[in-house]
């Protein structure tokens, strides 16, 4: 197991370098706005733009820029021209000049609260719904939940977000019961921050809860056909215990994999729509700003952090999976 983890970590390291490379390539190959011109202002002349290009290091070849970046992120060596040194030096934002790492760390709490809260909400919805639908197949309840589920899966998150806002937000809603847009920034205590997250949680969780419920339902239905469930019943176990222990234990295992990846992807800034609709100052909102302003260091930094989360959580999921499913062993 230890050898497996070490090997995986080495791969992760190489993958992160590759991801940085891909972002560089994408940024230069696909049309993006010229950061130097954006920064210089509309009346700046060629020399000014050139000076800015130099100060941002954009005059160097792509390969050289990439090398400097990689050196800053992954190695502890001094970087010529700056007094900031690696490792974990992600550069400064073209736009605000803020240290990318600091910005991302300052964004993480909001995103983490959003994502983990949403995870709790969607699991709290998905598990009972999935179980009930599975054991009461084709009942009215099952059909109703599955239709609702389809609606939520098909609804775009930003649409759902706006609908939620216009229905329930204290600032712009018809039935003003939950804190509205931008309330996270106003909240100064943890309970207040949680309250500000109620609508975003529900919105972010809605579609995922629906997907998980459906997935859990189909998993449970599969598991209930298993011989060992018949064995459990034949042993004389109460049905409740058969479902809660024997069926759920098997049905939930693949969901752990799903959950790990979903959490990673959301932490990586994929809550972008929810964050922008509700103005939650998290990684997603930062991504939105960075892309809008062609802020390469920010985009690069967020992507790397995202890749890091995904790689790490993937590894965690694999390890957890080995504990959940004793048949799995990594060499």
């Amino acid at each position, binding site marked *: 197991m230890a050898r497996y983890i070490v090997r995986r970590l080495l791969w992760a390291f190489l993958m992160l370098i590759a991801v940085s490379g891909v972002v560089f390539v994408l940024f230069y190959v696909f049309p993006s706005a010229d950061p130097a011109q954006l920064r210089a202002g509309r009346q700046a002349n060629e020399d000014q733009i050139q000076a800015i290009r130099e100060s941002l290091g954009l005059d160097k070849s792509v390969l050289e820029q990439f090398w400097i970046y990689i050196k800053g992120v992954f190695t502890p060596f001094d970087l010529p021209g700056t007094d900031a040194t690696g490792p974990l030096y992600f550069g400064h934002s073209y736009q605000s000049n803020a240290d990318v790492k600091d*910005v991302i760390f300052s964004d993480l709490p909001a995103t983490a609260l959003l994502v983990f809260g949403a995870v709790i909400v969607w699991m709290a919805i998905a598990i009972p719904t999935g179980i009930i639908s599975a054991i009461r197949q084709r009942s009215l309840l099952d059909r109703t939940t599955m239709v609702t589920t389809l609606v939520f899966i098909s609804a775009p998150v930003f649409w759902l977000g706006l609908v939620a806002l216009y229905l329930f937000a204290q600032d*712009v809603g018809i039935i003003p019961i939950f804190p509205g847009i931008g309330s996270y920034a106003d909240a100064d205590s943890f309970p207040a921050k949680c309250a500000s997250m109620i609508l975003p949680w529900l919105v972010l969780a809605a579609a995922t809860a629906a997907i998980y419920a459906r997935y859990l339902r189909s998993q449970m239905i599969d598991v209930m056909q298993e011989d060992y469930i018949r064995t459990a019943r034949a042993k004389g176990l109460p049905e409740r215990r058969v479902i809660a222990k024997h069926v759920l234990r098997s049905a939930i295992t693949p969901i752990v994999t799903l959950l790990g990846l979903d959490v990673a992807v959301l932490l990586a800034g994929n809550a972008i729509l929810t964050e922008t609709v509700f103005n939650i*100052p998290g990684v997603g909102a*930062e991504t939105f*700003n960075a892309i809008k302003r062609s802020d390469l260091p920010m985009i690069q930094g967020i992507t790397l952090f995202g890749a890091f989360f995904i790689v790490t959580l993937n590894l965690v999921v694999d390890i957890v999976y080995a504990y959940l499913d004793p048949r799995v062993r990594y060499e």
Partner: protein
Amino acid sequence: MRMKVLRALVPGLLVVAGLLIAACGGSDETSTSGTSEAAKQYAAPTEAPSDAQSGGDLTVIAASDVDYIDPGAAYYQFTYMVTSATLSQLEGYAPADVEGPTPLLATEAPTVSDDGKTVTYTINDDVKFSPPVNRTVTSADVKYAIERSLLPGVPNGYVQTYLAGVEGIDKAIKEAQDNPTGGAPDISGITTPDDTTLEIKLTNTTSIGVIGALTLPVSAPVPEEYAKQYDAENPSTYGEHQVATGPYMIQNACVADDGSIVSKKCDGELTGYTPNKEIHLVRNPNWGGEAGSPPDWDFRPAYLDQVTIQEGFADTVSASKKVLSGSAMVNGDFTTPPSAIKQAATSGEEGQLTLTPSGGNRYVALNTQSPPFDDINVRKAVLANSNRTDLRNTRGGELTGPVATHILPPEFPGFEEAGGLEGPDLDFIQNPDGDPELAAEYMKKAGYESGKCEGPDCEITMVGDDSPPGSDTAAVVKSQLEQLGFKVNFQKVTHDIMYTKFCSTPSNAPEVCPNVGWLKDFNDGQSMLDPTFNGANVVPENNSNWAQLNVPKINKAIDDATLIDDPEQRKQAWGEVDDMIMAEAPVIPYIWDDQANIQSADVAGVVNKFNANWDLAYTSLKP
């Protein structure tokens, strides 16, 4: 100032939000009227009510961050909203100032020597920097502020244009570029004979441009002994450590929320600024006045105790609703979207919606250097055929501004001289709804017998926005061009890419740029017409003359007008330049934007006409 008023962010967001509002709000009736009646009806107050109340906290709801927190680089309407409350330039703008600025740090308007080549300011001797600097401002602080703006680490977008006539500036620019971290270069033409005198020597008579540029934040004093350590970095970090001279300051560790001094000395790093998230303004304890009663040298009453600018409201429809239904809020950087304007106009309380001419225009640029638009008759045909009302309506209809007939915007010096709302006496601009017959005539004059464009030249490329409303405008432009027989290849990219990679790079410029426009820097025709239509200003990159118009007599007229230092003559001259440009039909101007600003019902907001946005130092909360 940059035309960077944030439009269309997430296309989907806005479309959906729009649909939602449309569904709730009934049909969208648009008017074809070309007047600015709406602007009159919703004119913004330019002075505080007589019973204005002191105290209270205001929240500004914004979509994005300021362009630069550094006052030396600030070049954006929304940023000016902040700097006009925290800084004291040599001259500033009171809310009603249209014709010219009002002295602020300077005791009076600058004197210009008889030869027009020396500009002298006398500055107040009782203005103090906010903590941790705390000392009295001298003329040297203004000199330093201007000099540091030449540093590559302080990306100022206008100083080198307007101050090009200042003695020794070329040398200073070179010095700064050769040694970006060597500190601000000395500009030999700017001298400080004593602590209250600032003298600027020019090599030509461009004093009006210089004086105009020095009404902008670059002339707000910066203490060299404090700032130089930050200016030695590239980019400079003075912005994150700036000190204030206005009634407000961006909070730092020296000052508490209520504006009281915690400590006279602190490291000066702003605690009240988080990029893309928040700017927190508190009262500047060294300002010298009280809420509602400014010190003798200042004209800003500054009623509010604190202002919090909250950023990141990407969906401007819900942000607008929040402002309209909330308390103690105003909009910040975004123009209120049409659906919210409608809501404010119909169901809001009186005064919640204000419309102010923004001092900007939007137009469709035709590339005059490339066939088929190198033929003036083809251009005239395109203008004649264009239904500019339709184009204007893509931005939200009548409440968003009148249909433009020329370049200089309403209430701007030279606007009336250029023909006012009616526009210049040119047949192809007369009918805002388009005149297909006239267009056909011009096409025939251009040699297209059928009245429609035919042949390989008629296959043209257009690069425009990929999100509404810009993409809507572009789509209408495309169909109008197709009516004349053009085959239009419409490439959609983001607004920034459209500018930096295509329309502002002549070597890569398409035949048509449908989503360009210009906002004044200050109230002088030079800032509207010189960068955009002077053939001498066509540059390989960052070009703003999108039509690439290069007509010698217009170039000369612009250069001449720049040197006129009598305001009346100057107005006349720019009005004429405007008409000369329109006679060349290089662009289809279709709107002079009115900026729609909104406020919560309990805010007594005052709009600064110069900036077309809320003036934080005049706005108060209703008693």
